[in-house]
């Protein structure tokens, strides 16, 4: 089987590269061993402004409204973090403290939204909080299996009866100038969160829950659908097991499911993620990229991998695959001519492209651009 570009990994980076190439009329395939870090994504990309227009338009074409706006994101533990680019249903606050009185609403029996933490954090910033729980008859059947009273299950129910939740909240609401809800709305229908914000009697915000993330799954589903509508081939649940490299050029890969049927490509994009997705793997003595055995930038002294303070930035998060200026992956000191590395497999090695989800987007654009603008190879 032959494609113009073969993409390894179907997370934000792989899908962004795939969509961009399909939009440019290229024939691509994405091979992805299971789902990805978008399922933990809370709706805020990192905070740089670069490529604002391109990113916004990219998401709008996929039916995913986003906004750029300098502000503070309210985190699940009641702290604030600066943000710029977010999904539209993420409320950004211009300054702290955000309000004088807040109403925190949870669903009764939902343990993945920590209302007490949230209240504690907010009260430190001078906001008085009141916590209420919602009991809807539509949610009763979920309780038959309390172990699975999870964000996604609630979101499925809410997709059809969010209006009832809004009506109940209106009754609960007194004089608070802020209403906080768990992020469990709009699993399939991206327009619901916006409608809720508009229907509530005060300014409101959705606060992240324990994974999986409802807006993250929604974003993943919309991007995958967009990719397939554009004619891309998505092989979900398959894993790239080996690659053939000759003279610094990757010619083909094999996968677990297609075993003897090799996938050939002119270009390859490695978007296999960080440690979580097994794009990078740590052994007792080194950090490796398991598939191509690419060169990885990491600290030789293992004691330097971690900091004792759990909440500090951890050095190992900055380790990543080495690339040249154009994101060609480096193996044995030499850049491979047709293999690009994008997304969180780069760790912190390319601060010029931003961090986290922003890094995934911008490196994916850059690799796709390099492919569409370069001449066909021999």
């Amino acid at each position, binding site marked *: 089987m032959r494609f113009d570009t073969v993409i390894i990994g179907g997370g934000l980076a792989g899908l962004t590269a795939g969509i961009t190439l399909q939009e440019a009329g290229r024939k691509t395939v994405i091979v992805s061993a299971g*789902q990805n870090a978008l399922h933990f994504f809370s709706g805020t990309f990192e905070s740089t402004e670069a490529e604002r227009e391109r990113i916004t338009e990219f998401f709008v074409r996929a039916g995913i409204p986003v906004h750029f706006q300098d502000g503070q994101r309210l985190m699940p533990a009641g702290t604030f973090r600066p943000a710029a680019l977010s999904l539209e249903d993420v409320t950004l606050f211009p300054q702290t403290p955000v309000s004088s009185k807040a109403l925190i609403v949870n669903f009764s029996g939902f343990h993945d939204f920590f209302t007490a933490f949230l209240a504690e954090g907010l009260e430190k910033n001078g906001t008085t909080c009141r916590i209420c729980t919602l009991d809807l008859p539509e949610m009763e059947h979920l309780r038959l299996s309390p172990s699975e009273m999870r964000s996604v299950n609630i979101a499925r129910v809410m997709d059809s009866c969010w209006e009832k939740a809004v009506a109940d909240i209106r009754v609960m609401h007194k004089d608070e100038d802020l209403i906080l809800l768990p992020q469990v709305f709009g699993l399939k229908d991206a327009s619901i969160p916006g409608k809720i914000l508009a229907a509530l009697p005060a300014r409101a915000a959705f606060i992240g829950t324990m994974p*999986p993330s409802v807006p993250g799954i929604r974003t993943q589903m919309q991007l995958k659908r967009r990719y397939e509508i554009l004619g891309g081939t998505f092989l979900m649940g398959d894993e790239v097991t080996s690659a053939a490299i000759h003279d610094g050029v990757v010619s083909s890969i094999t996968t677990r499911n297609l075993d*003897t049927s090799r996938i050939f490509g002119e270009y390859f994009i490695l978007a296999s993620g960080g440690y979580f997705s097994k794009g990078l793997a740590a052994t007792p003595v080194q950090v490796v990229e398991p598939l191509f055995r690419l060169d990885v930038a990491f600290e030789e002294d293992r004691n330097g991998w971690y900091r004792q303070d759990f909440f500090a930035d951890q050095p190992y998060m900055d380790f990543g695959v080495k690339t040249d200026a154009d994101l060609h992956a480096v193996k044995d000191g030499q850049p491979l001519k047709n293999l690009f590395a994008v997304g969180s497999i780069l760790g912190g090695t390319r601060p010029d492209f931003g961090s986290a989800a922003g890094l995934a987007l911008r490196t994916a654009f850059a690799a796709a651009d390099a492919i569409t603008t370069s001449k066909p190879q021999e």
Partner: protein
Amino acid sequence: MTLQEYTASAHNFEECMKCTICTAYCPVVPVNPRYPGPKQAGPDGERLRLKDPYFFNKALKYCLNCKRCEVVCPSGVKVADIIQAARIKYDRSKPKIRDRMLAGTDFMGTLARPFAPIVNGMTGLGATKAVLDATLAIDRHRTFPKYSAHGFEGWLKRHAREQAKFERQVAYFHGCYVNYNFPQLGKDLVKVLNALGVGVQLLEGEKCCGVAMISNGMTREATRHAQHNVSVLQKAVDKGLTVVTTSSTCTFTIRDEYPELLKVDNAGVRDALVLATRYIYQALESGAATLRFREDYHARIAYHTPCHLEKLGWGLFSQELLKMIPGVEFILLDSNCCGIAGTYGFKKENYEASQAIGKPLFDQVEAVNPDFIACDCETCKWQLEMSTGYTVKHPISILAEALA
């Protein structure tokens, strides 16, 4: 041997990192709250069951064995295998008569075929359906697959001589459905393979792959079928034959469920068994053969990927073949279980859940309004035809009708 090898469990439940992604994609969780979901039923429950079988939960029977949890798991946990293996190991309840009947596709077919016109008439009648519903709890909404009076095996035997004339040969594992219910699919396959210059022969006495027996708790019978089939397949492999199939579920069962669930060693035959769409795609790709299509063929086709084909990862071969036909407008339907899951949806207690699972798919078909649906699975076909009113054709049959 490393420490990891000592501690590894059968289906690697300890690799689970508790992300609940599997539960988010399980089709049963949203429609049946009594089902604990793949994470709880699989890796979490396994931990408890290993301590004490008391923790085995009967609700595991609600699992469709669709394998969607495994397809999405980022850690490669064999979630559905854990669940099915637990049912085999701990469930001591005897399968009901109804379940034995539904599972015995081979047996029912052998019995019913000589009387096909009568049986078809009977199972189609409202009164018979009401009786089945009341006595056996087979849901009255279901249409039984028609039994064909002339089996595929007999037909191919009659054409054996002309098939033998082809220089290149494959063996065909046709499965119960082609033999008893829909011989035309087998004939379509022969037509397409012949056009590629390949002759088709039968295996030396295949049996039902046993998928329905596995899901209905008839493990001993399923294991006997598996052992038999592996030995029959081995004979073909020894002759240097590739074995092609048209059912994605039979293929998946023989390749993966035999070793994983029934512990039947299929290493000698596993790689020789391929879906015909993959075989044909590869023949065309290698340039070994070409197909000529009609110029006046036009069809707007919506393609549904069956769960087990998605798990096999071979849906792209069917898709690419259909896209190859000039005059085809190809639409890929979203990945969504149709809800039938073999015999699951035939059971009265599952009917509503089954239809609710498939609803997004049915709605999408209606919105797309294709000329017909394409799908590689026989039970998806029954479900989609009953629930949408659109005809469902196998990709091989579409190739056959589009050939010049």
